[in-house]
């Protein structure tokens, strides 16, 4: 549910993320597979999203599960429109503070792709009061960790601190919400960093390239077709003024949510927020026009050639996202379907394609119902075993889908997925960061954190018939997009130079 299709400001931040998430990551699968999941976590955008669904399978479900402390969650709104949600968790003397902006690659236009993410980088480059680089130094000196990430739907900045240091976080975030000093000089350096990031994330990663092409094929009109990091051409031609324009457009209290989770008192957080964010002025935000992807009317295919050994196949179907948390049925059934296909090591895809027929070395399925852009896809992907082709794996995956369409799922499978939901709900309480992520993501995508409370019942109510029905309805050829990696050999990788003699 809660997706992590984010670009982070740094590599070290990813280390940091892994440190946070490893508790889930490494408990789901054994180490070899865990390694591959970690690797996937480092990929951008869509890849990230799928990871969020597989790696964070538990989390995916639990994301919508009621939180232990839901009774202690309080929300406020300042006069300038800033939303504040505080969840008290007194297990440890720490606090997580996040500022979520409703601005992501979804809001970009052609020719300026990647600007949301570039601005995220620039947010650390100083304000009228705080010099470039000082933000990080001040947080570090307070014992804190800080970073930021950009997704399709939002840009988020966060700090993790010992609880008494919360005022510093609030003060600094309020300052850079309106006082950013975005200079040409700093921009010129940072845009080069972002281009290095794109090379690292996408250019040299064959599966990332497939993902990028896949998205621009499955979406023809909707902005989800564009890479979060931006096309290289757009980065090369981006100016400081583009970033300034973005900042002026979207960075305002009435386009943001402050989420605080930890050993704090809600009333005290409100007081701090009033003190620092209170004086900021609301701004009129641009109209957000609905952007709707026209119905797909025939199968789409794309092939990507890149240097690699193994092929890779990535397939997607347009499916509905969550719109009305009370009335919708299909999103919950699709969530269960993802669990049945790939919710645990015994789920269908792994059991049938990796363990039994051994046609794949790795196979995956995922669905994100929470999307601010109100468009989403159900994704299936995998790597064929040596000697097997992408086409053979594609056929095998489709056969699994077909089995569900014709024969449905078993009661045992349904109960298994639901049992995991219950456990995951408990496990998530061990991480404050996750809890803050869930709240922030829901608030920023146009839902309320309160739907976390109704979600378990919604999932528990899903029937086997409903799961079969969504498979039949959406998994049809005319609604399918397939991207494949055609691996190209690398000729010369022989070492030159002399190794040590020990």
């Amino acid at each position: 549910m809660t997706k992590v299709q984010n670009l982070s400001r740094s590599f070290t931040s990813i280390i940091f993320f892994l440190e946070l998430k490893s508790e889930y990551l490494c408990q789901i699968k054994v180490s070899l597979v865990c390694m591959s999941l970690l690797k996937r976590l480092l990929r951008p955008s869509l890849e990230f999203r799928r990871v969020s669904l597989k790696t964070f399978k538990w989390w995916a479900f639990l994301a919508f599960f009621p939180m232990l402390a839901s009774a202690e969650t309080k929300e406020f709104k300042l006069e300038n429109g800033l939303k504040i949600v505080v969840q008290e968790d007194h297990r440890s003397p720490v606090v997580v503070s996040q500022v979520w902006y409703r601005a992501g690659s979804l809001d970009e236009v052609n020719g300026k792709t990647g600007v949301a993410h570039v601005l995220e980088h620039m947010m650390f480059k100083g304000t009228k009061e705080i010099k470039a680089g000082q933000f990080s130094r001040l947080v570090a000196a307070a014992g804190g960790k800080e970073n930021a990430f950009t997704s399709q739907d939002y840009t988020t900045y966060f700090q993790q601190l010992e609880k008494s240091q919360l005022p510093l976080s609030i003060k600094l975030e309020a300052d850079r919400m309106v006082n950013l000093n975005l200079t040409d000089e700093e921009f010129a350096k940072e845009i080069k960093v972002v281009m290095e990031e794109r090379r690292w994330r996408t250019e040299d990663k064959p599966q990332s390239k497939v993902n990028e092409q896949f998205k621009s094929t499955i979406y023809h009109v909707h902005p989800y077709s564009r890479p979060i990091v931006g096309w290289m051409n757009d980065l090369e031609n981006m100016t400081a003024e583009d970033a300034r324009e973005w900042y002026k457009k979207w960075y305002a209290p009435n386009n943001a949510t402050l989420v605080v989770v930890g050993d704090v008192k809600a009333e005290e957080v409100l007081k701090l927020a009033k003190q620092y964010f209170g004086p900021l002025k609301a701004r009129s935000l641009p109209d957000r026009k609905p952007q709707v992807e026209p119905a797909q009317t025939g199968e789409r295919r794309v092939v990507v050639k890149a240097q690699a050994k193994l092929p890779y196949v990535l397939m997607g179907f347009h499916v509905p996202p969550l719109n009305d948390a009370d009335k919708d049925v299909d999103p919950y059934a699709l969530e269960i379907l993802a669990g049945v296909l790939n919710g645990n090591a015994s789920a269908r895809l792994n059991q049938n394609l990796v363990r039994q027929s051994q046609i794949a070395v790795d196979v995956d399925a995922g669905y994100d119902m929470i999307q601010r852009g109100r468009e989403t896809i159900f994704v299936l992907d995998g790597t064929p075993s040596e000697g097997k082709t992408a086409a053979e794996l594609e056929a095998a995956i489709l056969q699994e889908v077909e089995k569900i369409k014709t024969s449905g799922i078993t009661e045992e499978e349904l109960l298994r997925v639901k049992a995991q939901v219950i456990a995951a709900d408990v496990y998530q309480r061990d991480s404050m960061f996750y809890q803050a992520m869930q709240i922030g993501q829901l608030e920023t995508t146009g839902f309320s954190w309160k739907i976390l409370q109704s979600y378990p019942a919604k999932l528990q109510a899903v029937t086997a018939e409903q799961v079969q029905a969504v498979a039949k309805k959406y998994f049809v050829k005319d609604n399918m997009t397939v991207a494949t990696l055609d691996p190209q050999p690398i000729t010369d990788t022989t070492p030159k130079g002399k190794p040590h003699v020990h």
Partner: protein
Amino acid sequence: MFTNSLIRGLCLSIITLAITTSAQAGLNIQQWKTSHGSEVYFVENHDLPIVDVSTNFYAGSARDEKAKSGLAGITRYMMTLGAGGLTDQDISKQMADIGANLGGSLDADRASFKLRTLSSSREQTKALEIYTKILQKPDFPDAVLSREKSRIIAGLKESATQPESISSKAFAKALFGNHPYALDEDGEVDTVTAIGREDLQKFYTQHYGAQGAVIALMGDMSRAEAERIAESISAGLPKTALPPALPAVTYPTSASEQRIAHPATQAHILLGYPGIKRGDVDFFPLYVGNYILGGGGFVSRLTEEVREKRGLVYSVYSYFMPTAEIGQFQVGLQTKREQADEALKLVRETLNKFVAGGVTEAELKAAKQNIVGGFPMRIDSNAKILDYLAMIGFYKLPLTYLDTFNDEVSKVTTAQIKDAFNRRIKTDKMVTVIVGADEAKQ
């Protein structure tokens, strides 16, 4: 696929961070030995209805022989894919049915098995029953072994085309030579191919003894329950003596530089030297010093010089990975291939200046503020505490390790940092691996 050196790098960094976690007043670690000689580390906490278990063996990839490299990893993995008559599918299904998570990892030193389960009686009993079988009665089914070998080999072949994996593998080889720390945890295509079921059985019997195994327990259980769990895990393990200590790492006698051709748009550069051991006398000066050099994220010297001032990289970092024997000190970066030499030169200058000149009082103060002030975040979840228990137990660190950590950090002086780096990091004998750059400009 399965092997990814960059990730390994990252994982190592995480471990490095983990090691350095310090103490919070009130973390009451209880420690005892089972009747079969396993060491138990326990923290009781009833805030959440969760039980976490981690069992650790001296069975990492450094125990591999070169000709059967990858055996340690395959043994650990295969233990979870068939035990006591349960098939891989039985294990997965039964664990999923009660919402239990089975995990674990393998590094050069250690093989670990983790279990997270609800503490409710039905779930906990069932989860521990399966977990115990995995540790005590692995079946190593032939058909599963053959399948998993194919998957691992596919992963190795894929990794051999990716610059991150290539650089990491070449770096370990160049740094450690004939020492087993040079061996890839995932093995090589040839060595994995050569591994058979009897190899796994033998490795298991020799390395998974009750004697010296480290069992960490965290969460919603009483001391009596913890004792019973530890006893039942320990009781059925092989009656084997502890494996011998690993051989000592030898230091490079001269600098080396390897360039490996690759068509990637970025060059992947690693440089380093053998660093420190767990429990090393120089641990704290090197740890605090490294925070300033390249461990402190956006506030490190490397990030400042290479990224913030010049925009040459997205990522540049340094870390020490303390292991049972001397582990890696690694500096890493990726940069557009055309500017690889420029970036490497700058990194070397920054490192040399750091080692020769040491740190300023202001830098040291800022480092201490972050490390000491950030301590509470290091043990703010059951999952994190469990990892510390396992680490303290596995490396025989004092029980007060966490309690005294902040004091040890606070005591470090600028002179100690300069002295420790000078003695430990020989900048004229560094190992360098560059994948994907153009030929060196002379």
